[in-house]
């Protein structure tokens, strides 16, 4: 099934040339379009999605419901009434072009429809025709198009070539957030029964088992035990993290990818080691075993449904507050939607207070949920961690700001503070590619599917180029990030555009550097690879002293 990928040179040569004709006069070529596989009929049916049906994006006929035009019209009408943002964003664009070259998918494909402005015009043109007077009277002269089946294909094609990273919105003088328009288009498509398997399968898993991967409780326990075995091998310390236990101060929720997939598991080991060393009063949960939220790639209601178990579990376990792991879209949902979706927080919850430093995190006083980078940065600031950064001294690391924590939460300094504390060599990538202007990994918002690998590598091209630059000029050989999707997607992007650079989560590096009480001298890192500068044996240390 796996097709051979073109070389980077071939990929860049295959970039679309600058457009010569007006976009309304040049229909897209769907034959070469990077479609994800469609969601299966029974998946959609089990989730209670409208009009579940079998269809294939490569086919001519997508088997839309009889009254599909009416569904779209009413769906758009309903959403226009609901969202002020939608009304404003559909009306206000002046096509100044400031966003055009800011999208990583445009930079990687050269497809004009991947310019954020044009991606938005795909919906805007239909809105004009059916909801504005000028569009009705002037038609194409006002940039309006009558809804047809090809437009539905176009929407599906380009709404799933947007990773909702919001970089374009940063450059829009009017503050238009194309990600929100993408989200609305995906919702509309969903009403016709059109969705991708890569998103809907995890959503179904999450609804049935509490996490995207579909891990059942005993499997979660086993996986965590395996990780604890590894920690014991490396450090000589046995950790047995509490699971589903009531009455602990903190409920810890990570993206489920972190207990399952390489290299996320090493980050999870880092979390566990940190908590153990601090003597933190916490519990994990097999029910709320997913911080991430693939529902947010589909609709507000689905996102709300998957998010609800976080507060519910904190209530059931009588936890004081929730600590959240390193994840991207998870934090977009928690930061922007959770409180509105499922708040207010259960009565037993309190504003997050670090039990180690006493810091009160007032900025999260309503959701009572804290990001682990904020928590650890606070520890670093107060000097509460005993660290041996020399264990990471073979790494010259840079930091990839994950779109959602950076742009939606403004989590820019905290991870850097932690990184500087645990790594002796830290190098920034060029201005304009980091912090709030960071480039997407190219696989966010449910695009992490294997079948569109070429598109993902194209989307990762800007990030890859920036990485390649610091690899060549500053000998960077490692990139840290704080997003589970990044950990899944960036190794491939790095292998392709900057071979030789490894990728890890922030807390993997924390785990490596953490000097734990009673540990044996470490000879390997968390991946059980030999440390170039292993810990000196205790006798030697004594001799040195």
């Amino acid at each position, binding site marked *: 099934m796996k097709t051979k990928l073109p070389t980077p040179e071939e990929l860049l040569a295959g970039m679309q040339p600058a457009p010569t004709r*007006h976009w309304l006069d040049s229909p897209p070529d769907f034959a070469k379009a990077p479609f994800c596989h469609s969601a299966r009929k029974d998946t959609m049916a089990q989730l209670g999605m409208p009009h579940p049906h079998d269809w294939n994006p490569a086919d001519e006929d997508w088997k839309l419901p009889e009254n599909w035009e009416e569904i779209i019209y009413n769906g758009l009408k309903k959403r226009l009434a609901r969202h002020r943002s939608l009304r404003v964003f559909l009306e206000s664009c002046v096509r100044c072009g400031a966003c055009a070259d800011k999208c990583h998918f445009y930079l990687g494909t050269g497809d*004009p429809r991947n310019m954020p402005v044009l991606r938005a015009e795909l919906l805007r043109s239909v809105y004009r025709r059916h909801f504005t007077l000028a569009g009705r009277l002037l038609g194409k002269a006002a*940039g309006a198009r009558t809804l047809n089946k090809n437009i539905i294909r176009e929407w599906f094609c380009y709404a799933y070539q947007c990773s909702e990273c919001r970089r374009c919105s940063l450059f829009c003088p009017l503050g238009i957030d194309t990600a929100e328009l993408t989200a609305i288009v995906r919702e509309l498509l969903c009403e016709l029964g059109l969705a991708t398997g890569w998103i809907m399968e995890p959503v179904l898993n999450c609804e049935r088992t509490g996490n995207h991967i579909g891990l059942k409780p005993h499997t979660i326990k086993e996986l965590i035990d395996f990780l604890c075995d590894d920690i014991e091998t490396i450090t000589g310390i046995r950790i047995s993290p509490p699971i589903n236990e009531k009455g602990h101060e903190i409920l810890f929720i990570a993206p489920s990818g972190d207990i399952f997939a390489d290299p996320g598991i090493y980050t999870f080991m880092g979390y566990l080691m940190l908590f153990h060393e601090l003597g933190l009063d916490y519990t994990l949960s097999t029910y709320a075993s997913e911080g991430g939220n693939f529902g947010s790639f589909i609709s507000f*209601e689905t996102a709300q*449904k998957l998010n609800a*178990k976080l507060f519910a579990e904190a209530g059931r376990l009588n936890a004081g507050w929730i600590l959240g792991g390193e994840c991207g879209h998870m934090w977009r949902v928690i930061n922007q939607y959770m409180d509105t979706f499922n*708040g207010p927080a259960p009565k037993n919850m309190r504003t997050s207070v670090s039990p180690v430093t006493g810091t009160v995190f007032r900025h999260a006083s309503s959701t009572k949920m804290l990001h682990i980078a904020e928590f650890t940065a606070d520890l670093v600031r107060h000097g509460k961690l005993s660290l041996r950064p020399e264990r990471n001294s073979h790494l010259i690391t840079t930091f990839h700001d994950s779109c959602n924590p950076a742009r939606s939460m403004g989590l820019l300094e905290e991870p850097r503070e932690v990184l500087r504390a645990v790594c002796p060599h830290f190098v920034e990538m060029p201005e304009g590619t980091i912090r709030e202007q960071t480039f997407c990994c190219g696989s966010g918002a449910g695009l992490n599917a294997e079948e569109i690998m070429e598109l993902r590598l194209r989307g990762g091209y800007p990030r890859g180029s920036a990485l390649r630059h610091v690899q060549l000029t500053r000998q960077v050989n490692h990139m840290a990030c704080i997003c589970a999707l990044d950990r899944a997607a960036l190794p491939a992007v790095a292998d392709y555009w900057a071979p030789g650079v490894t990728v890890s989560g922030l807390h993997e590096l924390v785990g490596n550097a953490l000097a734990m009480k009673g540990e044996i001298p470490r000879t390997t890192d968390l991946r059980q690879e030999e440390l170039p500068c292993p810990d000196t044996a205790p006798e030697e240390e004594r001799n040195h002293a």
Partner: protein
Amino acid sequence: MLFHAGLALTFLKHLRLFLDPVPRALALLESMDRAFFQGVPGLGASSLLLAASLFILLVRRLANARLRCLSLPGDYLPLLLLMGLAGTGLAMRCLSMGDCTQAKLFLSGLLHLAPLPESGLGPAFFTHLALASALFAILPFSKLVHPFAILFSPTRNLPCNTRERRRSNPWMQPAKFLTYAAYEDRFRTELAQAGLPLETPEQKKSGGQA
């Protein structure tokens, strides 16, 4: 930015045609505007700024393939109107030395709905007036109302403190989701097998094996 500054200055300068007496600040602005162009009658920094920036905006829209492929007639129309306005305006000031006093008399006549017969106002003036009227006529329907969008854009006028302060959503219904009780029922055996605490005592159907 240059364009917006040029437009604002030019707009302010036009106020002298409608205000009597001309406010001090306006006169000061006028003299500053012309400070660098003493030798050339009529010419001011704002005029040059406006004309040049309009030219750049049009050339940019035409020469850049990306922009050309997405531009609509509605993007060119205001540009062309403004260029016409700037052109006739400059022509009046620099070439025919339009008579400001006459123009002011004529306009105030129009404003008071008692038009005076024009005297000595050339075709440039009337073209200018017609274009200005057209511009104001399409203003509410065109993209020129875009400045107001900034005021309404949620990305511009809402603070990002959603973890600190809860906002309620009138159309959002409480979520229907997999509750813990249902989860425990579904995975009772697996939970027990893994030695994880159970909320309710084991039910008969699960076999009673811990």
